[in-house]
């Protein structure tokens, strides 16, 4: 079981003047579901890429498990973390089965043939994400929801103890969005470490154990949903008036904090309204 620890993390893209992530220290514990939240451009995806070792920090350290993430080989890291990145485009029309089976690459490498164990892992992952019936379809013919489930299945086929997802429910309708979050909860209960970046504050509040709220590249708040999603914090970070209510239930989420954005005229009562919105 491995979690992440980063300290003093800073990253500036070469073409940009401001760092996307600056002097950020945070811990993502193993065995829990952590959601990274924050406004557009607050550094969520950059942080995820730094944690996954595809970006090199300008300063600071990222450790995954017992060693710096840069010291993990790509194959070893792929056996430890399954990733669902933001949208991708297949150039050639591969089948859903083929795409999910790519999740076995870290176990097979360039030469080894798919064995029984690999076939079982692929089928399990596909059934779990409800895409088994789509096995022979080509990826470009899938709907947005089906494609997203297939990509989650690919990450599951990696059979890694940790799962990282970048806005897995962007552009999905409510039922498909809920289905993905329910699946993540099941995986969390099954012992997986889950790290997800999302814009959905309310679903994060219900389905994540811990929230990390980013603002301008640093951590504005972290902790349990009740600790992070307070009216004051959310209004400060997002610059919009909100009310916090409790999830009415029934179900396991009863009482979870839920953010209700108010209408724009309520901006006047905020201590520091965001000027760009206020002026409009």
């Amino acid at each position, binding site marked *: 079981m491995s979690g992440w620890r980063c300290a003093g993390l800073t990253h500036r893209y070469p073409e940009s003047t401001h760092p996307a992530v600056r002097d950020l220290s945070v811990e993502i514990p193993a065995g829990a579901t952590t959601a990274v939240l924050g406004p557009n451009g607050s550094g969520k995806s950059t942080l995820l890429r730094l944690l996954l070792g595809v970006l090199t920090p300008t300063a600071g350290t990222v450790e995954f498990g017992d060693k710096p993430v840069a010291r993990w080989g790509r194959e070893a890291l792929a056996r430890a973390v399954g990733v669902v*990145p933001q949208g991708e485009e297949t*150039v050639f029309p591969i*089948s859903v089965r*083929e795409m999910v089976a*790519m999740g076995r*690459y870290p176990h097979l490498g360039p030469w080894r043939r798919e064995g029984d164990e690999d076939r079982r892992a692929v089928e399990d992952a596909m059934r779990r994400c409800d895409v088994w019936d789509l096995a022979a379809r080509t990826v470009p013919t899938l709907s947005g929801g089906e494609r997203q489930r297939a990509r989650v299945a690919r990450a599951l086929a990696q059979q890694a103890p940790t799962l990282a997802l970048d806005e897995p429910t962007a552009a999905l309708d409510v039922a498909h969005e809920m289905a993905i979050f329910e699946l993540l909860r099941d995986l969390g209960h099954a012992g997986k470490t889950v790290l997800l970046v999302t814009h959905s504050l309310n679903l994060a509040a219900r389905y994540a154990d811990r929230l990390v709220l980013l603002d301008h590249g640093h951590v504005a708040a972290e902790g349990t949903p009740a600790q992070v999603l307070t009216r004051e914090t959310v209004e400060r970070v997002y610059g919009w008036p909100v009310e916090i209510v409790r999830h009415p239930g029934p179900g396991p989420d009863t009482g979870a904090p839920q953010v209700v954005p108010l209408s724009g005229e309520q901006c006047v009562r905020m201590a520091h309204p965001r000027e760009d919105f206020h002026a409009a």
Partner: protein
Amino acid sequence: MKGAARLLLLAAVLAGALLLSVRLGAVRLGTREVVDALRGAGDPATVAIVRRLRVPRSLLAALVGGALAASGACFQALLRNPLAEPYVLGVSGGAAVGAVGVIVLGASAASGTVAVAAFAGAALSIILVLRLAASAGRTLDTRVLLLAGVVAGAFFNACILLVLTFSDAESFRAALFWMMGSFSGATWREIGLLALAGGPALAVLMALARPLNLLSIGEETAAYLGVRTERVKLAAYGTASLLTAASVAVSGVIGFVGLVIPHVVRMLWGPDHRFLIPASVLLGAAFLVLADVLARTVAAPVELPIGVVTAFVGVPFFIWLLRRRGV
């Protein structure tokens, strides 16, 4: 083992194409005569035709066809672009500058000189394009690579036109013929060199097959699935470029094979590079051998440029395939 059976079928098609190619020509031969001639028996003139002319020519066509098709399949995956083909990154332009330069300077009596100059030009262009693309950042951005290749290709074309402007009619004609591509001067030495380069290159491409599958769904995704993407991109670029350079050096610029053959294989049997690459090699080889038969025989005694035949046969077939699949 569906894949293996299909490859065997394609190998049989290639064998048939080679036999046909050795039999047909100015002098028609029977299969019996060909077999005898290969063993060195029978009419000495026939033996000479088979051993010195037809077999080398057919084998060279096969090797070039296989190399170009494999190279095209690799470039299409590397650049994530279905329109990519072996010459898209300027290798042929670099080769042509070398070859045309030598032809115009008049040192061209020995075809070996032209081949060496063409290969040197291609090798220089491979390094130049890589330097252009890689200096823009630490990692190799394939979009920048494509741009660098296209720009370099345009520059090489300008160089060729400049050189041709100041050439006499005879070398102008010779340069034009070289650029159109031909197998007429095939020698065993060229075959040996191409096979020597092609064998290891094919092995490298097979090792890259699965990583290329992953790369074609996205570079970042491939990295998350355990592919060392920078290494794979460099190896794919280098190997596919060298295959193209070696082919162009021995036979000139033969278009169309490298673009269309991988698409045909993909449409018939899917895009898995572990099958796509060897199947493209076999089908590309068979296609170019048959195209060369047509080039030699259709308008005999005039020999058509092989590129004309590949386009005239390939384009309608490709259109038919596109229509049938409703892509």
